[in-house]
């Protein structure tokens, strides 16, 4: 039987209260959202916080909305809400593509956007999708609020810019009219973490790639990105030749490792191939040829 180490439990009913509790209990306290990354780690004693602060009752963090030219997703929005959101689908189908292949419906009913980004697992699908889109992350502390670029948020595997007495409240993505986006993932079986996965968006100006973003999961790309590949596409015609060159750069510049999900060379192959597929689908969507 897997049981976590003992801990104290607190429930916060507002962001301020959560921050107060974090401050009062110090470094050994942790927030718990869906608990679907944290509890499995606590059950196998990879994590043993002394205090858990439950933020499921904190109001106002479960909204998906538009604010000016930004799409805003609250930290307590569940995977299922992301999957079902017409607003997100309208602007960025990459979210629906990714959510369809994140875990299973039961996990998606519980796991949150905030928990996904803060867990910062190198195989996290939303983090890779978020890295593709860029945007920003809003972090609250008792001193106030700060906004960090999405691509700086992940400091390394399982490490983010969120400090001990801080909390992620929302993530924001710039709306890019006419952009297409897509997510491509290979997993060993339904519901599993990625062997490799790639998210992308492409914004076209006629047949020229005006802007592009690529995010890679599970292949050891720093901050989930390979900027060289994006650079190679910006301002270029959207031809197969250019897409293949960018895919090759992702293949060459990621750093996968061999593990139970597959050998290094296979993952590298996938990084290239899935980049190509994600770009092609993004372009097809930008042109209105695919929904």
């Amino acid at each position, binding site marked *: 039987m897997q049981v976590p180490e003992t801990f104290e*439990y607190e429930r916060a009913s507002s962001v301020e209260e959560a921050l107060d509790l974090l401050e009062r209990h110090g470094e050994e306290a942790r927030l718990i959202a869906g608990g679907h990354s944290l509890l*499995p780690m606590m059950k196998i004693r990879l994590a043993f916080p002394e205090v858990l602060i439950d933020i499921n009752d904190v109001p106002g963090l479960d909204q998906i909305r538009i604010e000016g030219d930004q799409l805003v997703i609250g930290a307590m929005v569940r995977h299922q809400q992301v999957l079902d959101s017409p607003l997100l689908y309208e602007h960025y189908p990459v979210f629906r593509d990714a959510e369809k292949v994140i875990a299973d*419906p039961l996990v998606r*009913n519980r796991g949150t956007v905030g928990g996904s980004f803060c867990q910062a697992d190198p195989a996290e699908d939303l983090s890779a999708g978020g890295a593709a889109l860029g945007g920003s992350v809003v972090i609250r502390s008792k001193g106030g609020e700060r906004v960090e670029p999405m691509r700086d948020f992940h400091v390394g595997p399982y490490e983010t810019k969120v400090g001990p007495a801080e909390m992620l409240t929302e993530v924001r993505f710039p709306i890019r009219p006419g952009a297409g986006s897509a997510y491509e993932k290979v997993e060993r079986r339904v519901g599993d973490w990625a062997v490799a996965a790639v998210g992308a968006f492409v914004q076209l100006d006629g047949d020229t790639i005006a802007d592009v973003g690529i995010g890679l999961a599970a292949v050891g790309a720093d901050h989930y990105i390979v900027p060289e590949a994006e650079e190679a596409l910006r301002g270029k015609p959207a031809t197969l030749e250019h897409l293949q060159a960018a895919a090759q750069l992702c293949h060459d510049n990621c750093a996968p490792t061999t593990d139970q999900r597959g050998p290094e060379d296979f993952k590298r192959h996938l990084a290239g191939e899935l980049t190509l597929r994600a770009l092609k689908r993004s372009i097809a969507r930008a042109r209105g040829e695919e929904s």
Partner: protein
Amino acid sequence: MQVTMKVNGDEVTRDIEPRMLLVHFIRDELELTGTHWGCDTSNCGTCTVWVDGEAVKSCTTLAVMCGAREVHTVEGLAKGGELDPVQKGFMEEHGLQCGFCTPGMMMTAKWLLEKDPDPDEETIREAISGNLCRCTGYENIVRAIRWAAEHPADDTSEVTA
């Protein structure tokens, strides 16, 4: 610490350790052993129950996190001695063999039908993708859920009345 929640409509209060998982609270504290406990690693789905109307894996939820919430287990499916259409569907279509996965399957199936009363085969297969079955090959489970969709409670009540 003391925790109070509603389980199948009844208020229950227990004094438990915060680390107690919901599945153990249900099985050991409340002695509702219909909810099964399998992999313990959030994969098999046999521990599926509802928390505030959403189907979740109770081995990956703390009981204290369900304080002041509503939990539903397989024991709550039948109403007034009348089996739920989902339960009847599993009987009619032979949706189980050993029965180990069945409580979780039925709780997920019921959750699906609440959201989508007329799901097609693909939708059903997607919905139960977090529930593993070692026996049936899933064919009859899918048929059982379709049966339930085709025989909602109001239609079937008179058959057995």
